[in-house]
């Protein structure tokens, strides 16, 4: 309020009347004084007093005590005074509902005034008074005003319906105002149409399922006609409303587009952006080979570029939207890189957004220019901007291979500047460049090492440590460098600690002789002196690995790394599509769906892009797909086709599972299992074999973790780690280790142990079926099923002796099969099987056997031998057997992988009549290692994004759509994407099986 008083001198300034003097009402007793003035007979004095009241109100002073006196001034023919009183009423009516009634009469009277301006003023103000009692009185005048002869009154009344609806929705419906409002869409005056559209759109938002707007070709035509004639704001309302319409076919879509494109030349940026929204949305429906489609794409670029010459705030909104458009349709702006170059005096928020778009548009064609620019930016003042620019240089290197060399040398130049944050940022990106192009740029390591001391940010330190560890063999003093970091181990952030641990283990594996002490030190720091569970767990895993099987450790720790993504911060495709439907709005500025920032249910329903007409593909975007590259660590070709499918079982190459990596450390020796040869009997009796499988059972049975781990520890022994109690923490798979792809053999078992213990047996096990009828097998009946328990695949078999003689000497062997299933141990039918006796056996299986593609894929040919004969049968296993426990994909990776898998690899299925909701389905599926990575709710649909990993490392991504809104539609839709699309239908079968049971 102080500022109000300093303008006192204006009071006496003579003829030119100013209003600032009214801000001088702070003195005590002012309210009393004002009261007197308000009740004065003189009109001028009254008006002065009301002005003072409004001024007090503005600065937040409570002048509600004057309510009756102000309302008394309402009955006046002075329009200015009336407006001021109305303003006061709108502010305070809610706090004084009883007295507000006093105003009703005047309102009703004003609604009949011959002057249309006054009628409109009354109806406009009345709608803003949120008092129930007044609302009732409002209905009649409003009804009249909606049909008023003057368009100015009608356009005001149209908005008033929305106001009233906000106060009392039921009343509006009961009074039939909605129908009147709908009629106004056909009004002759364009502004009335625009306001009616705005009001209806708003009301429709709170009734998502009502067909309130009832957009049909006729109304659309009316709207398009009004579009040419109404004010810029009206055009925005109409375009935003049009964007909610879904044309019936591509021809209608095209004709709307044709009538909307002229708006792209409007001076008002919001009109342009709303038109862009309509076009971007309806374009989805146009066939791509249509000439018009190409024309439209060309027409979109210039107006988007023009938006960049608007005021900075609008530029910001435009850039945020362009960011979305570039992701959705990169072809529109691919030649416009230059306009996104940063200007020296752009506001920082514009600079940062431009930089983002520059990276997205960078390609081989323009990379030289982009790099030159980025180099300039890296010398600017603003720290955030400089960092982002440096990071962008790294992104360019990763995105455009041809530029990598130049990028690296640019980064080295920047490191030479010794500007602390530039150096750190450069090191972080160089790490990624090393990842992307291994064995190419390691010559720069020496330069990087020079800057070790200046790194004070965790991310940069971690990156540097990673580099030292990764290239330990090329850095002579790697051990010294890492040791220097180790000194302050406990002061480092977790990120750095984890990286340091891994780096030293890498170093040890590369130079075991000199670094034993160092690795001991870091392991004990990580496991004994740290209370961070991640760090401890990772420490233990390394320790265990190193002490059990250094070869395996090497395979895990120094495994080949998955490719890193070329694109960063990509928006998930369904969210992107939704945001495209929200172009121009806040959602597109925040890059978040409205539900993320809007309270309540208003306007948060999800929007979807229309599907392209005449093609089965959903709202996918192949263009973006091309721009994105692989992030998957799944090998593309997995199932080698090996010659003749119908190999004679007798000629089977019965290679033992040991031929790969031994499943369990050396203590276990599996002999070659020659089913048909004479070695079988001796094998059965083999001491080591039995003990090995005994050991196996112990590991696999779901015992408390400490127990089994100690067991393991005791077994392998010999390392200090084994003396340490594990404290019951189940050994999970820390993220860092997860980077190692497809852990095979013994390591697989090690992790299965960890994973298996944690997972409760929730998977569906189909009942046993007869695989080998007695008739065909000389009295031996075999029925069986498959199950996955604690991460180990079991074949549960029942042997029934239906013959008259005792059966002994059982053995089993598999033909080569698609996923390399093989018995992990011999068949344990230890006692002879008497006639009519049944014995249940559970045979653990490994997936390290020989691989051959079968038809169907999940076919398994089995040979069983007993003392009587050899019998052959085939059975099919549910593919869910092969879903491993670490099949939960990281969200980001999921997103990138999904995009990366070409859409022809996508298979669609329907699961009919399934009554599960998304949570139940998700839980059920999780039991079988189908993991829900993310869930989104769109309209009345829940979408579950799920990942599955097979034992052979194939990833399968699925989107499961569950209707939630309509209890009658119980069909689920399943889309499966996989690099090996032949697996998809088996996955679908599993979904069916699991969800139905």
């Amino acid at each position: 309020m102080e500022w109000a008083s300093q303008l006192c001198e204006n009071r006496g300034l003579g003829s030119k009347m100013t209003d600032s003097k009214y801000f001088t009402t702070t003195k005590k007793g002012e309210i009393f004084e004002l009261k007197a003035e308000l009740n004065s007979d003189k009109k001028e004095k009254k008006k002065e007093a009301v002005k003072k009241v409004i001024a007090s109100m503005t600065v937040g002073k409570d002048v509600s005590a004057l309510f009756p006196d102000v309302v008394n001034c309402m009955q006046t023919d002075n329009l200015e005074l009336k407006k001021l009183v109305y303003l006061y009423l709108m502010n305070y009516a809610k706090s004084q509902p009883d007295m507000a009634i006093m105003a009703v009469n005047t309102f009703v009277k004003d609604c009949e005034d011959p002057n249309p301006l006054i009628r409109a003023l009354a109806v406009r103000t009345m709608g803003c008074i949120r008092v129930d009692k007044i609302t009732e009185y409002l209905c009649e005048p409003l009804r009249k005003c909606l049909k008023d002869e003057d368009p100015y009154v009608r356009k005001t009344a149209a908005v008033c319906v929305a106001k009233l609806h906000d106060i009392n929705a039921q009343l509006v419906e009961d009074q039939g105002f909605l129908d009147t409002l709908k009629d106004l869409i056909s009004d002759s005056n364009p502004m009335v149409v625009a306001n009616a559209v705005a009001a209806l759109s708003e009301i429709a938002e709170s009734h998502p399922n009502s067909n309130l707007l009832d957009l049909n070709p006729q109304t659309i035509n009316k709207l398009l006609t009004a579009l040419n004639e109404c004010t810029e704001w009206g055009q925005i309302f109409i375009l935003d409303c049009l964007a909610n319409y879904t044309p019936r076919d591509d021809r209608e879509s095209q004709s709307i587009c044709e009538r909307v494109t002229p708006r792209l030349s409007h001076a008002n940026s919001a009109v342009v952006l709303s038109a862009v929204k309509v076009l971007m949305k309806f374009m989805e429906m146009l066939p791509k080979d249509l000439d018009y489609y190409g024309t439209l794409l060309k027409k979109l670029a210039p107006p988007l570029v023009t938006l960049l010459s608007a005021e900075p705030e609008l530029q910001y909104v435009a850039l945020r939207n362009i960011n979305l458009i570039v992701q959705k349709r990169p072809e529109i702006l691919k030649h416009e890189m230059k306009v996104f170059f940063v200007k020296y005096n752009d506001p920082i928020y514009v600079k940062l957004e431009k930089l983002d778009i520059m990276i997205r548009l960078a390609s081989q064609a323009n990379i030289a220019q982009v790099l030159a620019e980025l180099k300039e930016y890296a010398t600017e003042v603003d720290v955030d901007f400089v960092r982002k620019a440096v990071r962008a240089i790294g992104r360019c290197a990763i995105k455009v291979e041809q530029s990598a060399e130049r990028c690296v040398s640019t980064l080295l130049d920047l490191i030479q500047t010794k500007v602390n944050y530039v150096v750190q940022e450069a090191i972080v990106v160089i790490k990624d460049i090393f990842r992307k192009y291994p064995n190419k740029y390691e010559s720069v390591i020496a330069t990087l090492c020079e800057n070790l001391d200046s790194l004070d940010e965790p991310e940069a330190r971690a990156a540097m440590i990673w580099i030292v560890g990764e290239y330990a063999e090329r850095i002579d003093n790697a051990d010294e460098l890492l040791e220097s970091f180790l000194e302050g181990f406990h002061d480092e952030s977790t990120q750095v600690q984890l990286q340091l641990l891994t780096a030293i283990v890498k170093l040890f594996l590369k130079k075991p002789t000199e670094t034993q002490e160092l690795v001991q030190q870091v392991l004990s720091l990580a496991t004994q002196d740290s209370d961070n569970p991640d760090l401890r767990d990772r420490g233990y895993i390394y320790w265990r690995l190193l002490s059990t099987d250094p070869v395996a450790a090497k395979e895990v720790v120094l495994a080949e790394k998955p490719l890193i993504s070329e694109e960063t911060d990509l928006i998930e495709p369904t969210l992107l599509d939704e945001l495209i439907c929200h172009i121009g709005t806040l959602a597109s500025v925040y890059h978040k769906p409205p539900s993320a920032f809007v309270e309540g249910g208003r306007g948060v329903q999800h929007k979807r892009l229309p599907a392209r007409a005449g093609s089965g593909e959903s709202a996918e975007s192949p263009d973006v797909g091309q721009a994105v590259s692989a992030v998957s660590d799944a090998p593309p070709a997995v199932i080698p086709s090996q010659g003749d499918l119908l190999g004679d079982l007798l000629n089977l190459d019965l290679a033992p599972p040991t031929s790969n990596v031994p499943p369990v450390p050396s203590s276990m020796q599996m002999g070659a299992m020659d089913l048909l040869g004479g070695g079988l009997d001796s094998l059965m009796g083999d001491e080591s074999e039995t003990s090995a499988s005994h050991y196996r059972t112990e590991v696999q049975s779901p015992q408390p973790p400490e127990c089994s781990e100690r067991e393991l520890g005791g077994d392998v022994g010999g390392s200090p780690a084994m003396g340490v109690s594990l404290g019951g923490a189940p050994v999970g798979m820390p993220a860092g280790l997860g980077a190692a792809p497809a852990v095979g053999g013994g390591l697989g078992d090690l992790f299965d142990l960890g994973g298996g213990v944690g997972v409760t047996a929730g998977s569906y096990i189909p009942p046993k079926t007869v695989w080998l009828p007695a008739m065909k097998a000389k009295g031996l009946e075999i029925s069986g099923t498959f199950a996955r328990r604690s991460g180990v695949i079991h074949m549960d078999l029942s042997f029934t002796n239906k013959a008259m003689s005792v059966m002994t000497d059982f053995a089993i062997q598999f033909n080569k099969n698609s996923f390399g299933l093989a018995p992990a141990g011999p068949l344990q039918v230890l006692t002879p099987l008497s006639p009519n006796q049944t014995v249940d056996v559970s045979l653990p299986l490994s997936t390290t056997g020989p691989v051959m593609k079968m038809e169907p894929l999940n076919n398994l040919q089995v040979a069983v031998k007993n003392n009587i004969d050899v019998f052959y049968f085939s059975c099919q296993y549910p593919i869910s057997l092969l879903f491993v426990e670490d099949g939960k994909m990281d969200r980001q990776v999921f997103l990138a992988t999904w995009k990366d898998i070409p859409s022809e690899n996508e298979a669609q299925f329907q699961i009919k009549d399934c009554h599960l909701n998304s949570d139940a389905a998700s839980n059920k599926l999780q039991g079988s290692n189908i993991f829900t990575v993310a869930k989104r709710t769109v309209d009345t649909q829940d979408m579950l994004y799920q990942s599955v990993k097979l034992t052979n490392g194939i990833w399968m991504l699925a989107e499961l759509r569950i209707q939630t809104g309509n209890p009658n539609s119980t069909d689920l839709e399943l889309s499966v994407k996989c690099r090996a699309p032949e697996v998809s239908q088996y996955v679908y079968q599993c979904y069916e099986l699991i969800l139905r049971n």
Partner: protein
Amino acid sequence: MIGGLFIYNHKGEVLISRVYRDDIGRNAVDAFRVNVIHARQQVRSPVTNIARTSFFHVKRSNIWLAAVTKQNVNAAMVFEFLYKMCDVMTAYFGKISEENIKNNFVLIYELLDEILDFGYPQNSETGALKTFITQQGIKSQHHTKEEQSQITSQVTGQIGWRREGIKYRRNELFLDVLESVNLLMSPQGQVLSAHVSGRVVMKSYLSGMPECKFGMNDKIVIDKQGKGGTTDEAGKSELGGSSGKQSIAIDDCTFHQCVRLSKFDSERSISFIPPDGEYELMRYRTTKDIILPFRVIPLVREVGRTKLEVKVVIKSNFKPSLLAQKIEVRIPTPLNTSGVQVICMKGKAKYKASENAIVWKIKRMAGMKESQISAEIELLPTNDKKKWARPPISMNFEVPFAPSGLKVRYLKVFEPKLNYSDHDVIKWVRYIGRSGIYETRC
């Protein structure tokens, strides 16, 4: 839609507060002050979300205008509205300053009531508003019934920007082609980016409801005419000079509300009924064949750690008969500059320590001339590791031609109801090319 609109002074005190929606409370006023105005360094976006409430702000001198909402509003519209609001206020009481706002707070409330209804922007054309929202306030009640309906039909009508019954003794119009030429050049003289953003501003003093048609040397139109053989002889070079390029390629253009966009889209003809007085008819952007009026050739040499030698040559590149004015070259100097000696052939040059730059001003310079400045900059030794960023050398100037090459070919006026013809209208055309961001890196 917009839930509320607040205007603050630089200290964050509220000058105007108008709430349109129930979901916006008084605390929103304080939230913006605390989180944005008082923390302006940290806020790096014109859109801020505080406790699920979104604030859009623009600043005019030291006045903050903020629009508040809790819904998913059309963000572009909100900013366009805020700019419009500023235009309307400027049209009513001049500069947007704390004093003017306080002096006109009743008027501002009245305007806000009119141009924003329940948060939906309504007709905000000043021409229309001024007919019924007046600073006198009382005038409105003296309107006759006809006048009233005329007001309302204008506010809601198709031609909301012009009222009927305007009369001038002398029908006259002024066209200003105002261009700002933008350049970013590498130290080696390579054009990194260049574009012209131009505006055609029209001042019209025409009676009645005149129908206008505007023509320029737009490549698309000229080519089309050339092909069709129906060259509009009457219109050709009626107004513009005949020199320069035949036609120019316009990358994109936008038009004032009054221009019939669908007609432009289909025929590329610009036809409209103009508002009365001054307004911006169109904006356009060109990137091809731009005439760069000046070239800046910089030479910076670091002599040891404490001295810098700078030599800058500027060359004017247009017809010798034309004169450029208000030429200013700004050569940035490092922060640790201790002293500067400047020698220039023409104009005046001064080192301005507060702006960290040498400012070289030349009043006039003809085309095809060259001028040079050299400076020795003494530096204080510093242990600051960070290198000097070397901001680009920027230039300001004004030239009497359009760097894009745009020429006005005709502006025809038809007013069938009143008895004046196109020939009776006095027309003036002026071309002004100004520097936008005209920078050369050094």
